């Protein structure tokens, strides 16, 4: 049956703001020491703590050595095994190599020693490069699958909008979408189970193997058991898996999209599946920046906006010096002090500080200002991304902390972060003592667990 009504499909994952940095080629630059560039991001060894006399040692890793190691080690299985055993972050107060040699299992360190003997690279360099690889796989959001997923989602949505009926073209496109959605969800589920359930023991190959051999359904159950995943979302994720299996294993069902008869029905499934992928992107810590930007506590927002404005001024000084100087020359503007209301979607229309609009009617300058604030808004998300990565807490718990510090209710935080209220309560128990000086400096005061929080007995009373 044809259906020519306009079809509005809305998605949970915002392709514009989700931090998408597929694995790219490494480049090694020499900028006062080695810097490894991966896409828009970069890695550099910085001195530990405040001991400035260490900076000479830090520069001893040579650019040429790193360059050679990156290209030679890419396909080495032993090296990959060291990468897999590396943690995704190290405590800020420790030297990375010292920490890694204590953290890694003996077998990995032995492999590192053997590899050092069979290659021109020293053990420390091998560990450092392995750690870059491990970090990039987590905080680089290096899911090429996510990129393919978004492309396929755009394709099926466009086909649904432009056709009157479900034809074989739509069926094929939807099937491809569902396969990619399932692959993305399963990949993120595995990662989150490893993060949450085996936080420390994840360094052992055998534990990683155990999680991989569990099967997707079991991994989802684990996430539900530890309450990072709500029961409702768990049910929806099980449905996605069932639908995917039905279409994969039954050609007849695939041809009819398992009895989805109208564009509206296909669009609804599309939206539900996208929402499931969005939940996993959030609880795996990969897509938390926009929630922190909108709901974070005031001291943190002030810090991140101030850094973002400084980053933007640095960029504009190099790339748009004339436009920047016009803004600097404007009496109404105090560029360094520009801030905006983060709860609104368009920062340009919500400048709260740093510009006086009264009596201002210069349209050209207004356009330049809007561009500046637009760039600052992107740099703001980058800064949150960098802070979440640098934090001693994992990325998702960093988001929980910044929202708890804003005084939001457990229920609101759980809803915004796609998790269970109980998870937020449990984290409040540990965040205050697990947070380092770095996090404490960003948020000023971390709330303490107070009052008892027994489960509501409303249902049993009924």
């Amino acid at each position, binding site marked *: 049956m044809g259906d020519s009504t306009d079809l509005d499909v809305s998605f949970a994952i915002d392709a514009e703001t989700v931090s998408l940095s597929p694995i790219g080629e490494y480049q090694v630059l020499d900028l*006062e020491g080695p810097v490894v560039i991966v896409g828009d991001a970069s890695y550099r060894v*910085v001195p530990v703590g405040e001991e400035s006399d260490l900076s000479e040692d830090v520069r001893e890793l040579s650019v040429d050595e790193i360059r050679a190691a990156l290209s030679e080690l890419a396909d080495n299985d032993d090296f990959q095994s060291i990468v897999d055993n590396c943690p995704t972050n190290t405590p800020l107060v420790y030297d990375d190599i010292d920490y890694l040699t204590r953290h890694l299992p003996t077998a990995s360190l032995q492999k590192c020693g053997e590899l050092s003997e069979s290659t021109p690279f020293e053990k420390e360099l091998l560990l450092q490069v392995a*750690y870059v690889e491990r970090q*990039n796989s987590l905080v680089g959001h290096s899911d090429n699958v996510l990129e393919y997923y978004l492309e396929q989602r755009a394709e099926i949505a466009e086909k649904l909008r432009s056709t009157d009926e479900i034809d074989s073209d739509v069926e094929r496109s939807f099937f491809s979408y569902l396969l990619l959605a399932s692959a993305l969800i399963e990949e993120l589920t595995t990662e989150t189970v490893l993060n949450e359930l085996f936080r420390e023991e994840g360094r052992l190959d055998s534990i990683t193997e155990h999680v991989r051999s569990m099967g997707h359904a079991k991994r989802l159950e684990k996430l539900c058991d530890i309450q990072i995943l709500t029961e409702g979302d768990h049910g929806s994720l099980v449905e996605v898996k069932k639908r995917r299996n039905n279409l994969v294993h039954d050609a007849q069902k695939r041809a009819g999209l398992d009895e989805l008869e109208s564009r509206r029905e296909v669009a609804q499934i599309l939206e539900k599946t996208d929402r499931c992928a969005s939940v996993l992107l959030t609880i795996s810590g990969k897509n938390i920046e926009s929630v922190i930007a909108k709901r974070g506590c005031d001291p943190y927002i002030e810090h991140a906006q101030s850094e973002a404005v400084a*980053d933007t001024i640095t960029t504009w000084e190099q790339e748009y010096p004339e436009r920047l100087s016009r803004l600097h020359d404007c009496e109404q503007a105090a560029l360094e002090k520009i801030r905006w209301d983060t709860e609104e979607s368009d920062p340009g229309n919500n400048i709260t500080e740093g510009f006086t609009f009264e009596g201002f009617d210069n349209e050209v300058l207004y356009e330049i200002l809007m561009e500046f604030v637009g760039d600052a808004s992107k740099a703001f998300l980058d800064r949150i991304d960098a802070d979440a990565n640098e934090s001693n807490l994992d990325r998702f718990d960093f988001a929980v902390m910044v929202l708890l510090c804003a005084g939001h209710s457990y229920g609101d935080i759980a809803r915004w972060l796609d998790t269970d209220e109980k998870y937020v309560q449990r984290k409040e128990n540990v965040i205050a003592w697990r947070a380092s000086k770095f996090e404490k400096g960003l948020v000023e005061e971390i709330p303490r667990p107070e009052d008892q929080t027994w489960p509501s007995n409303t249902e049993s009373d009924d």
Partner: protein
Amino acid sequence: MSAKGQLRRFENRAQLLRHISEETGTDIDTLWDEYEAQVE
């Protein structure tokens, strides 16, 4: 070889160069030009 330090990830060029400038005292204009010259 010793490498006493922490690996830090920077999300954009300005973050990186501001950090290097603060750490080493090299001015950002020079670092920016160096970056442009070396990046492929």
